C-alpha cells in the first residue's frame, strides 16, 4: 500500500511546499552564519541597514549576493541535470555531459595563465595585455569557450541523426579535448599561474556579486520557463523517442533546445562560480525517487532541492573553514553523496 500511494498528488505538493519552506528558512540562516562574529541582532540591524558600516557591508555586499548565488546556481544546475537525464534518456547524464565544464575550465585557464602573466616565458606571451587580471574577464573567456563547445557539439549532432547515445559520446570526446588543452596550458604555467587556475576551478560562491547573480538569474529563468512549458513533452519522451513522436512531439527540436538551454545554464554557473559538481545528479534523482518522474512536479521540486543543497553546502563550508570558506563544490559532493547512496539503496529495498 505504501508504494501505491508513493506518487499521489498530495505527496508531490507536500514535498514541493516543504522544500520551498526549507529554502526560505535556510537562506536566512545562511545570512546569519559567518566568520565575522556578528550576533543575530547585529544581522537584523544590518539587514535594515541600521548596523555599523562594516556590518551593513558584510550583509548587503557579501552575504546576500552569496545566498542569492547559492539559490540560483543550485536551482539551475539541478534542473539542468534533470532535463539532461530526460532528454538523453540516460540516468548518468549531468549538467556537464556535453563537456561544458571542461570547456569553461579551459577558458579560465587560458585567461589566467596565458593572459595574466601566469605563463612561463618562452619569448612571446600575451601577459602584457594583463587581460586575465580582471575576474570578470576570466569568467567571460570561460563562458565563451563553454558556449563554443556546446554549439560545436549540437552542430555536429545536427549533421547526423540526433540520437542520445551519439550526443553523450560526442560530449565525452569534446570534454576530453578541453581537458587535454588545459593540461598543456598548465604544463607551461608558472607556480602562481597554476595555483590561480586550480583555485579558480574549485567552486566558490564568494565570487558572486549582484551583477553575476543577475546574469545567472536571467539564464536560469529563461531555461526554467522553457523546461516548465515542455513538461508534458518530457513526460512523453520518457516513453521513448518513437512513442513520443507518435504522440506528436517533435523530438529532435525538443532535444536540441533542451540541451542548449541546460548547457547554457551550466556554462554561466561554472563560468562565474567554478565547478560545483554532483548537484545536477543528486538532486534530480532524489526528487524522482520521492515523487516520481512527472515533469510538472519534478521540475519545480528539483529547482528547490538544488537551491537547498547548495545553501546547506555553503553554510557548512563557511562554518568549518575557520574564516576562509572551504570549496563549496567539494562540500556538495561530501554532503550529498552519502545521502544519495542512502536514497538509492532505500529504493532498491522497495522494489
Amino acid at each position, binding site marked *: 500500500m505504501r508504494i501505491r500511494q508513493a506518487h499521489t498528488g498530495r505527496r508531490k505538493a507536500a514535498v514541493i511546499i516543504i522544500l520551498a519552506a526549507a529554502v526560505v528558512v535556510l537562506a536566512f540562516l545562511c545570512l546569519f552564519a559567518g566568520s565575522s562574529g556578528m550576533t543575530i541582532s547585529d544581522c537584523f540591524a544590518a539587514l535594515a541597514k541600521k548596523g555599523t558600516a562594516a556590518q551593513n557591508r558584510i550583509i548587503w555586499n557579501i552575504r546576500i549576493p552569496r545566498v542569492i548565488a547559492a539559490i540560483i546556481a543550485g536551482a539551475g544546475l539541478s534542473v539542468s541535470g534533470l532535463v539532461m537525464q530526460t532528454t538523453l534518456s540516460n540516468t548518468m547524464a549531468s549538467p556537464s555531459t556535453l563537456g561544458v565544464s571542461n570547456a569553461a575550465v579551459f577558458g579560465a585557464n587560458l585567461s589566467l595563465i596565458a593572459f595574466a602573466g601566469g605563463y612561463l616565458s618562452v619569448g612571446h606571451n600575451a601577459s602584457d595585455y594583463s587581460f586575465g587580471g580582471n575576474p570578470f574577464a576570466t569568467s567571460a573567456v570561460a563562458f565563451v569557450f563553454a558556449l563554443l563547445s556546446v554549439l560545436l557539439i549540437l552542430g555536429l549532432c545536427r549533421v547526423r541523426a540526433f540520437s542520445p547515445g551519439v550526443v553523450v559520446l560526442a560530449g565525452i570526446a569534446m570534454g576530453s579535448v578541453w581537458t587535454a588543452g588545459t593540461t598543456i596550458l598548465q604544463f607551461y604555467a608558472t607556480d602562481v599561474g597554476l595555483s590561480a587556475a586550480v583555485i579558480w576551478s574549485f567552486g566558490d560562491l564568494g565570487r558572486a556579486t549582484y551583477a553575476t547573480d543577475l546574469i545567472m538569474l536571467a539564464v536560469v529563468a529563461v531555461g526554467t520557463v522553457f523546461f516548465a*512549458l515542455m513538461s508534458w513533452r518530457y513526460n512523453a519522451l520518457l516513453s*521513448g523517442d*518513437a512513442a513520443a513522436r*507518435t504522440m506528436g512531439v517533435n523530438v529532435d527540436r525538443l532535444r536540441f533546445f533542451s540541451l542548449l538551454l541546460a548547457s547554457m545554464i551550466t556554462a554561466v554557473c561554472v563560468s562565474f562560480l567554478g565547478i560545483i559538481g554532483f548537484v545536477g545528479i543528486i538532486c534530480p534523482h532524489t526528487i524522482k525517487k520521492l515523487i516520481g518522474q512527472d515533469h510538472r512536479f519534478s521540475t519545480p521540486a528539483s529547482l528547490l532541492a538544488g537551491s537547498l543543497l547548495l545553501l546547506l553546502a555553503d553554510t557548512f563550508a563557511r562554518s568549518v573553514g575557520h574564516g576562509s570558506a572551504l570549496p563549496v563544490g567539494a562540500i556538495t559532493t561530501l554532503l550529498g553523496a552519502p545521502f544519495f547512496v542512502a536514497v538509492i539503496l532505500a529504493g532498491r529495498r522497495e522494489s
Partner: protein
Amino acid sequence: MLEVRDLRFAYSRRSEPVLRGVSLSLADGEVGIVLGRNGSGKTTLFSNILGINSPSSGSITFDGTDILKLSRRERAKMIAYVPQDIRFGALTVFDSVLMGRVARFGLTAGEEDREAARRVLEDVGLTELAERTVTELSGGERQKVAIARALAQEPRLLVLDEPTGNLDIANERLILEEARKLARSRGIGVLSSLHDLNRALGFGDRLFFIKDGIVKYDCRRGDVTADMINDVFGGRVRMIDFEGEKIVIDEKITEEET
C-alpha cells in the same frame, strides 16, 4: 480508410531496401493483421505510417488526406501507436493516459482532456488503477495503459506492434478482444502485427502477408491457405478444420531431424 500505395523504404542509401513497394488498404472499423518473418519489415512499415521514418517513395493516405504531408501533431491526432517495447516514466496511470492528448492540448491539459482520459480509463477498465504509478504495474496492466494512452489521442487508426508480446494467454485474449471491440464500436481501423498465426486468424478481418518487401498475399481471414503461410514463413504447416474453424498446426519435430 487507410491506403498505402507502393511504399518503398531503406534505412540508408547504401543498405538493401526493406520495403520494395508495399500496398494495402484498411477500412474503418476493420482489424488488419500484418504477418511475416522476423525482420520482414513489419515494424518498418508501421514506422513509416506513423512518421517515425519517411519513405523514399510511395504514398500513404487516410480518407484521401496525404498523411506524409501532415505535421507531427496533426498526424498524432489521426494515428496512435502502441509500440512493441512499452516504456513509461514513473507517472500515475491517469497522467500516462492524459499524456496521450499532448498533441491536442499542447502545453497544459484542460478539463476536457481530463474528462477524455477518465472516459478511456473507464472503457478499458483501468479506473481502479488510475492513481497507481505505471512503472509498478504488471506487464498486462501496462499494456492496457499503453492502449488507453493511444486511445486518448482519439485516433482514426490504431497501430499495434506485437501487442501480445509478453502476455499470458488470458491477457493476450483480453487485449485483442478489447482492440476489436474498439474497432467496431468507434469505427477506427486497427493495424497490428502478431506472431501467433492462430491468433491472427481468430482476430483479424484481413491479413497482409509480407515477403520480400511487398505484401505478397492480402486476403480475408477465411481465404488463408497453408500454402500461403508456408510460402511466406518457409515453414511446413498444415491447416485443419476444427468445428468449423481453421487451425494452423506445425509439423512435429521428429527425432530423425534433430
